Every structure is written in structure tokens, then in C-alpha cells.
């Protein structure tokens, strides 16, 4: 059943100075669903998920996550809510000064405070094996390739068992084979951890492979919403430009 909305956005507006990035965006993410948000660069996709994670404050409208309005809750409540949200950043955002092990343990020690050292070790190895990089434990982020950084970043995100995953351009900057591996990984994570996900992308192969439903943003507004098949059959020039 995919009828419970875990995220509900109504008339979201966000501007930076005179530039209106999000004019009026409304959408819902249902439980255990993979929602792909497609759009050209500058269409406001990344701003949208940063508003969901509370990294940016909306100018108007509401972002409700698990029935809590992000703009109305206290910093402490936001912290607790964020424990249920995983965010994969475009560049991975691995902490440069820490090893892979320390990167993975960082959120774990802060969110799951009651874990023993053995449990932390076990959990760290488990997520590393899930992303296929069990031998990278003692490496520094600078020693990893782009694809490996994305995988480790993904491992760091899932280590705290989030209920919602937000992916910001997960395949950008990767070669087609690695992009395909990351898309497969997103699906595997969704199945294994039973997450609901928003995947921001302009990579149509990633959208095809991961999306249960697609929303297209254009100039800060929802331009089209539907299944991948509906997009593929569309005669609209903008939609067709993505599916060529």
C-alpha cells in the first residue's frame, strides 16, 4: 500500500534576492515510494530537497514531514526529525579530514547513542558490504574515486536506518556504468531498508531505473507528474528533450 504521505509540500516558495527559484511547488511522497524529480539545471530541484531537510527555510508554503511542519518545529524537534531522513549530497560531502570508518561512525555515534563498540563495528561493516566497499574502511576520501565516494556517502546515509532518503543528483559526474550501479544500489536500498525516496536528477536512465513516479519541475513549478510511460509518450517538447 502506497497511500500514506510521508512528505507533503504545499505551495512552496523560495527566492534568493530577486530570483524566484521555487514559485509554487506542491507534491506528496508516499510511503515506500521512489519519487523522481526531473528538471533542467536551475529549475529548483536541489533547493526543493534542501527545504525538505530544513537546510533552507521556505519563504512561503509548507513542508510537512511525518505530519510535522518543518518551519514550525523547534531546532531540537528538527534534529529528531532529521534522524529519520537520509540525505545523499551531490558531491558526496564526505568529511575530508576523517577516514571512511570515521565518516561512517560520525552519524551513528550521534544518532544511535546506545550502541556498543561491537555493534558500531558490525553496523559499519554491514553498510560497507551493502555498497560493495568492505575493503575501503581505512581509506581517506581523497583516495576514493567519484563512484566510490558516492557509495561511501550512501553507506553513511543508510547507517542510521533512515525512513526517508533524499538523493541530490546521485549519478551526476559519473560514467554510465557507475551511474547504473548507483541506480541499482538505490533500488536495493529501497528494498532492504524499506525507505521512501525523493531522487533529484536530470539523468533519464537513473529516473527510468529508480522512479515509481516522476515529477518534472520547470521554472520553479511542477510542470508534469506521472509514471515514466506517460512521460515517454508525451509530445511536449520539454519532456521529449529529456527522453531523446
Amino acid at each position, binding site marked *: 500500500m502506497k497511500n500514506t504521505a510521508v512528505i507533503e509540500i504545499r505551495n512552496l516558495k523560495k527566492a534568493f534576492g530577486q530570483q524566484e527559484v521555487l514559485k509554487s511547488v506542491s507534491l506528496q511522497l508516499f510511503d515506500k515510494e521512489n519519487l523522481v524529480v526531473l528538471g533542467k539545471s536551475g529549475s529548483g530541484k536541489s533547493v526543493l530537497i534542501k527545504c525538505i531537510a530544513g537546510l533552507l527555510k521556505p519563504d512561503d508554503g509548507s513542508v510537512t514531514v511525518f505530519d510535522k511542519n518543518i518551519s514550525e518545529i523547534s531546532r531540537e524537534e528538527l534534529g529528531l526529525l532529521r534522524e529519520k531522513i537520509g540525505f545523499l549530497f551531490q*558531491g558526496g560531502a564526505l568529511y575530508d579530514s576523517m577516514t571512511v570508518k570515521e565518516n561512517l561512525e560520525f*552519524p551513528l555515534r550521534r544518532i544511535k547513542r546506545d550502541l556498543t563498540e561491537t555493534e558500531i563495528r558490525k553496523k559499519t561493516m554491514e553498510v560497507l558490504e551493502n555498497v560493495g566497499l568492505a575493503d575501503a574502511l581505512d581509506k581517506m576520501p581523497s583516495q576514493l574515486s567519484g563512484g566510490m565516494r558516492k557509495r561511501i556517502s550512501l553507506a553513511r546515509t543508510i547507517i542510521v536506518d533512515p525512513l526517508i532518503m533524499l538523493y541530490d543528483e546521485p549519478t551526476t559526474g559519473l560514467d554510465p556504468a557507475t551511474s547504473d550501479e548507483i541506480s541499482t544500489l538505490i533500488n536495493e536500498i529501497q528494498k532492504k531498508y524499506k525507505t521512501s525516496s525523493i531522487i533529484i536528477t536530470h539523468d533519464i536512465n537513473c529516473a527510468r531505473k529508480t522512479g515509481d513516479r516522476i515529477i518534472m519541475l520547470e521554472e520553479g513549478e511542477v510542470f508534469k507528474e506521472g509514471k515514466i510511460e506517460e512521460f515517454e509518450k508525451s509530445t511536449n517538447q520539454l519532456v521529449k528533450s529529456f527522453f531523446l
Partner: protein
Amino acid sequence: MKKLHTEVIAQAQVAGNFLTDVADVFLFILRIIKESFSGHFEFKEFFHQCYQIGYKTLPLISIIGTIIGLVLTIQSRPALVDFGAVSLLPGMVSTSLIREMGPVITALICAGKIGSGMGAELGSMRVTEQIDAMEVSSTNPMKFLVVTRVWAATLMIPLLVLYADGLGILGSWAGANIKGDVSFSLFFAQAFASVDYIDFLPAFIKSIFFGAIIGIVGCYKGYNAGRGTESVGIAANSAVVNASLLVIILDMIAVQITDMLVL
């Protein structure tokens, strides 16, 4: 007339931006104070930063402290010899080192090494979204990154100043022995006989403020860096320039206050 009008608006904007910056810094300091005393303190990161700021700056401070003492002695000795007052050399050098040279030169070196390091590191973390990643990991980046660095700088820079003072006097003894012959114990006895708590205490207190300023400016510039890679360089550069300038201004104020209190 129109040109004048445009010029006035431009100047008003510059003044407005300056006031906004001052208000931002003020709010940043208030937030550091608030975050320092609310919730748990990141002790592990604080000790790590103390190690980074204190221990890793020791070699540089050792070289500079020793050379400053040595050079000060070599430069001052001929004038004192002319007046037959060479016996005053240890006292003169130790007083000038403890009162002024040690704190200011150490602070300026630290503004360059530590301030720029903080500006570049936090700026790079901002640009690569590591600060955002920390925030979504339910970690307060202000507490973890800023508060620990500012307190570590505030604690370690006065200690580095004391260390530089000590090595400066040692360098001075070496300098005095190039053309003279004075024993280590006699030189140190004379050096410290001339130094009173009124020389030491104000210098130590201003070193604490130098440390705080370097930490705050470095963190402020890095934490509020823009989004492009260019911003990292700008953050590091402006951290050094602003911290150095503020150290000199604060030194001038500290000297005035000390002078008034001593009188």
C-alpha cells in the same frame, strides 16, 4: 546631479553592507557564547583542535620566538654598550618580549597560520556541503566546528605566547653571548628580576583576546564562505587580513588601558 545621486546611493550601500557585516559578526559571537554553554560540549573535537592549534604550531613559534629574542639583543646591544648600560640588556629584552613582542608577533603568526587554516578548512567544508551533511546528521555544526575551534584558539594562543616569550629570552641569552660572556643563570636572573606582574598579566590577558579574535574571525569567514571554490581562497585571505588588523587594533587599545590602569 544624477552622477552625484548615484554616487551617494553607492556610498550608502557600502555603509549599509558594512553595518550588516558588523551586525552579522556580533550575532555570530552571541551564537558562539550561547552554543558554548547550552547542551553538551564537544570535548573530543576541542582537544583535537587544541592539538592542531597548539602542538602543530610549536615548531614555527619555536623558530620565530628564538630569532626575535636573538635579533632584539643583537640590535640593542651596541646602543647599551655606548651608554655603559649593557647590564640592563636582559631586563630590557625580557620586558619588551613579555609586554609586546611575544604576544603581538605570536598572534600575527597565528593569525596567518591558524586563522587562514580555519577560514580555508571551514570554507571548503561549506563549498563541498560537508557542513550541510553535518547538520542533516543531527550534529550542530556551530558547536562541533566553530565553538571548539574558537575555545581551542583562545586557550592555546596564550600558551604559545608564553612559550615564545621563554624561547625569546633563551635566544636573547644566545645573542648576548655572541659578543659577550654571560652565564645562563645570571642572564635569566637579571631578565626576570626586571619583570613584574604588571608586565606579565596585561600581556597574558590580551593574548587570550588575541586567541579569541583569531578563532572568531577565522571561523566566521570560513563558516560564511560563499558557494564557489573561489570563496575558499577569499575566506582564507580575509581571515588573515582581518584577524591581523584586529590584533593590532586590540593591542593598541590594550596598551592604552594598561597605561591608564598603571598610572
